């Protein structure tokens, strides 16, 4: 039953929503620390990691780079987002690399992305619901 409701596409959409929610928290953290000396901003890594995990192994099996490595299937942790620290240097004298304008724009972008993915997920569930209802005849 679960495989029917949570197919591959829906899983990716859900993971994207998780990443977007985490991005919001990270943005809040960065903005709260906009004046903290020596603070380095954080960001969420998700899209590149997911694409690398999915498209590199079309058969969902890792190729062995070394004979002693064990092959394994993809795990959820390969696909999920992670929070990383942006270590780039800044021109500010307090060594804080938060750019308030960029952070605000990133937050707005993230909100819109969240809206879009939610909308898409809604559309997919609504299509399923439609089929279930109409199929009664």
């Amino acid at each position, binding site marked *: 039953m679960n495989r029917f409701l949570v197919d591959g596409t829906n899983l990716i959409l859900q993971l994207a929503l998780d990443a977007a929610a985490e991005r919001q928290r990270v943005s809040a953290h960065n903005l709260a620390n906009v004046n903290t000396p020596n603070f380095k901003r954080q960001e969420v890594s998700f*899209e590149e990691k997911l694409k690398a995990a999915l498209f590199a192994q079309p058969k969902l099996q890792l190729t062995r780079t070394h004979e002693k490595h064990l092959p394994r299937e993809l795990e959820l942790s390969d696909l999920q987002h992670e929070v990383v620290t942006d270590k780039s240097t800044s021109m500010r004298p307090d060594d804080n690399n938060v*750019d*308030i*304008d*960029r952070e605000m*724009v*990133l937050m*707005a*972008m993230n909100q*819109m*992305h969240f*809206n*879009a993915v939610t*909308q898409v997920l809604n*559309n997919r569930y609504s299509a399923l619901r439609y089929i279930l209802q109409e199929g009664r005849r």
Partner: protein
Amino acid sequence: MKMFQAMQVSASGLTAERLRLDLIASNIANAHTTRTETGEPYRRKTAVFAAVLAEAGQAGEGVRVTAIRTDPTEPRLEYDPTHPDANEEGYVAYPNINVVQEMVDLVTAVRSYEANVTVLNAGKNMFLKALEIGRG
């Protein structure tokens, strides 16, 4: 994300104008600084903007600050032998900063900043409107 390219362009505009504002603030604050760490009077600073271009036929990718120029013109001399920074002839070198000019630049920077915010909001509204496709 590619779909938010317009917003990133606006963000680059906001960052550039904010930098310009910081420089103007520094210029005005130091309008009468006769001695900096180098021993010289303060010199006016301006930012040099450059457009970030994309491939031919595509919209550009925003603006960036390529350099912060220091004004090379000679400082203004005033006769005041009692001043601690006076030279042998009794003249004090003051920065070449015209506060009125700086205020005009300030207003320009603020208006540009606001314009970038307006563009950003317009882009956001378009995106949210697009999400209504198929809804309802």
